[in-house]
């Protein structure tokens, strides 16, 4: 499935994820895409290799006298429960997204935002926000602008806008002041995960004053 992806993550986003400077909300979109895309996984792991070289080049800092023994003690206290970590989740959501939702798509607590569109905001550190969106087949996403960067990944169905057609795994990155109006394909509802740096401003749907109540 990883070969069908057409729209990838830009290198600077992967670099920010690799260094650990990317916000939690955007990191969730990156982790979701990389779970589905080996092309970006390879790019990411090659950027991680720079981090490896940086670590290797660090001037050694003396460790505590009993440091090794203390570490071995920690190890014996830990169960070797490592291999049953989520490998590849069967279902719609990769494991990182599942851990935020508390399960797969059937565990999402959707709220209606009007015109048949539903959303679920996921809890992350402040500064950027991330939410799941479910758009009925053939429907338009409410027209909106945003102040910062916005990153959207499709998990089910597809949508189309000025940037092209986006299917499962595809990511759209939109920068400041872009006005786009995605339309979901006919067929099944389009489910996407969208991260934004600043709150969205819906133009047509809600008066701006109402926004705080919807936390978008």
């Amino acid at each position, binding site marked *: 499935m*990883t070969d069908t992806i057409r729209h990838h993550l830009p*290198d*600077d986003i992967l*670099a*920010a994820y*690799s*260094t*650990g*400077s*990317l*916000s*939690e909300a955007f*990191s*969730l979109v990156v*982790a979701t895409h990389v*779970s589905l895309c*080996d*092309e970006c*996984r*390879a*790019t990411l*792991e*090659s*950027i*991680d*290799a*720079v*981090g*490896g*070289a*940086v*670590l*290797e*080049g*660090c*001037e*050694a*800092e*003396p*460790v505590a006298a009993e*440091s*090794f023994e203390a*570490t071995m003690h*920690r*190890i014996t206290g*830990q169960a070797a429960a*490592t*291999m049953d*970590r*989520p*490998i*590849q*989740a069967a279902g719609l959501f*990769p*494991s*990182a997204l599942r*851990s*935020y939702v508390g399960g797969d798509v059937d565990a999402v607590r959707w709220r209606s935002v009007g015109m048949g569109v539903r959303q679920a905001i996921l809890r*992350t*550190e402040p500064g950027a926000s991330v939410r799941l969106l479910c758009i009925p087949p053939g429907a338009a996403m409410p027209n909106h602008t945003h102040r910062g960067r916005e990153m959207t990944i499709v998990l089910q169905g597809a949508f189309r806008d000025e940037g092209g057609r986006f299917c499962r795994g595809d990511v759209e990155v939109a920068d400041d002041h872009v006005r786009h109006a995605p339309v979901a394909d006919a067929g099944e509802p389009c489910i996407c995960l969208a991260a934004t740096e600043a709150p969205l401003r819906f133009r047509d749907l809600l008066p701006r004053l109402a926004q705080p109540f919807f936390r978008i």
Partner: protein
Amino acid sequence: MTTDTHEADWAEAMLRVREARDTAAFEAIFRHYAPRVKAFLMKSGAEPGLAEECMQDVMATVWTKAGLYDPSRASLATWIFTIARNRRIDAIRRARRPEPDELYWGPEGEPDQADVLALQEESARLGRAMEQLPEAQRDLIERAYFGDRSHSEIAAETGLPLGTIKSRIRLALDRLRHEMKMKR
């Protein structure tokens, strides 16, 4: 030990930890990497006490997650870096770190030995390229990894040989995917 064999030797030591739970091999890894992990955490803003704490956590994770280490996709330094970075995000920024699904060979699978050597050689080459960078440029890259938020663009402009290492990793991923399909 020459620089070329260096990376491959550490990968080899890690495999002994993975396969045989070899404490001597782990101690050698600890003596080399623990002081670097601690330095990395301190340069990222952790107090010495917290850095020591987190470093022990990181090194304990190296032992407990040994089964996930894939020498055809990462040098040992790179793999330890990713664990240390995640621990830093958790401890210093107090945010969660969403991670991609794990892809690993499983209990019976093994990466191709030629792939392992090629990747370890590429990692050594990357390390040398880093050392040869002009100081200002290297400093910029290091600061980005120590968590200086204002410098996050590394890949494009540095002139580091990332393309070759990426194609190696891509190849290893293709083989791993193939293996996973065969098992199903």
